[in-house]
């Protein structure tokens, strides 16, 4: 887990609705992506979720995972973002 090479952060922002976590997790499990951590908060009335996932055994490329999650997000009316974790680690840790 300390190996950051394949660690990826997925953020979901939008209006709360039934089944957001379920649908995102279904997509991830279907593609061999392991969820390491989930946290959730409400920012200015909007649903805001962050997942830390491990893509080392993913069956899809990073780019197609981004595309897949975009489609899942579009179906739910929320925005889903998928970023390599290093950008956050570099910015917030010395």
């Amino acid at each position: 887990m300390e190996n950051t090479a394949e660690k990826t952060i997925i953020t979901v922002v939008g209006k709360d609705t039934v089944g957001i976590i379920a649908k995102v997790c279904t997509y991830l499990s279907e593609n061999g992506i392991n969820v390491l951590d989930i946290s959730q908060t409400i920012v200015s009335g909007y649903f805001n979720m962050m997942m830390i996932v491990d893509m080392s055994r993913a069956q899809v490329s990073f780019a197609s995972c981004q595309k897949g999650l975009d489609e899942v997000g579009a179906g739910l009316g929320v925005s889903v973002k998928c970023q390599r974790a290093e950008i956050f680690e570099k910015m917030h840790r010395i």
Partner: protein
Amino acid sequence: MINIFEVNETNKMIEQENLDVRTITLGISLLDCIDSDLKQLNHKIYEKITRTAKDLVAVGKEIEANYCIPIVNKRISVTPASLVGGAACRTPEDFVTVAKTLDAAAREVGVNFIGGYSALVSKGMTASDENLIRSIPQALAETDYVCSSVNVGSTKTGINMDAVRLMGGVIRQTAEYTKERDSFGCAKLVVFCNAPDDNPFMAGAFHGVTEADAVINVGVSGPGVVKTALEAVRGESFEVLCETIKKTAFKITRVGQLVAKEASKRLGIPFGIIDLSLAPTPAIGDSVADILHEIGVEYAGAPGTTAALALLNDQVKKGGVMASSYVGGLSGAFIPVSEDQGMIDAVQAGALTLEKLEAMTCVCSVGLDMIAIPGDTPAATISGIIADEMAIGMVNQKTTAVRLIPVIGKGVGETVEFGGLLGHAPVMPVNPYSCEAFVGRTGRIPAPIHSFKN
């Protein structure tokens, strides 16, 4: 482990505060392309650039997608063309063919700009240097991507006033050659004192002769992020103000360092430096002038502006230095007029003059940048403005630069539109008194006493 608040902070910087990586610039040495046959020279240059930079744009886009951070420009800098072309180019027209080759190579690999159509003449000019300088107006008029720079002075050598005089005329001629596009050619031409070898920013980027065969340099940005961070400390002491700028600069620079290291790894080209710069764009909220306003001056140019800018520039460096393993280039706050909406507003309000801008360049990078002046400004006056700016750089042992645009057919109060990152600018008044007798003297201004450190 990273928490949701940190993730949200980073993404807010990117989505709402215009955090981006301004440029990945691939420096390529063309010294091994030198040939006495012009055709061969051009062939070798084209081949080397397109081979070395073939993956640059694709890798840049891949990194953008992986981290969801915009990388606004992918650029190339090359060895100063006056050195590379010296053996083959006998006339200014010969050099223009080199410019066209650089342009074609840039188009082929899909970069935004290619820099290095340059000459380094801080002490004297070779015939080749002079031919290149005389070719600049035609070269910039007949190419799209080529950027040109001429280093006319340094702390170690003094100022080459023959080159300064020549550049006044070259800038005017470049303006004439591109007059149907608001003299746009001048936006691609910079005159330097103490030009750095590893600058990733245009129009002044070139790949110095002290550099390796190829190198990745990255320029960061993020005025909007600094501005937003400062909104939270309004009215606080200078200590709090400075700490806030430092912490923000650290975070911005770390992103640049990450992108630089990734680009270096994926391209198999060594990492050179990070340029710690606050580079504005005309986009709302991406302005250095807005930071000065937030620090406490009504408009950029009001009394206090130079002190505020000095503080800002210093804190950006202090925060940024620890975030990167190698720092270089220009590294400082940029104060271009046309590329910064806050600066444009300050000029239009009458708060900011050419003279105040000159004072501001004493304490920050880089110089009189992207300033539109009346089209009838004499060449000698342009040379005089260049000489003043070069003197500031020479005496203060820093880089200074001049990128003036005498807009042919336009006068004070009119506006020019360059589009894109280059923005738009109100034409600013220039001091009407002559310096012809000063500029008319030949030779060079000697190096200052404090340059003799050996």
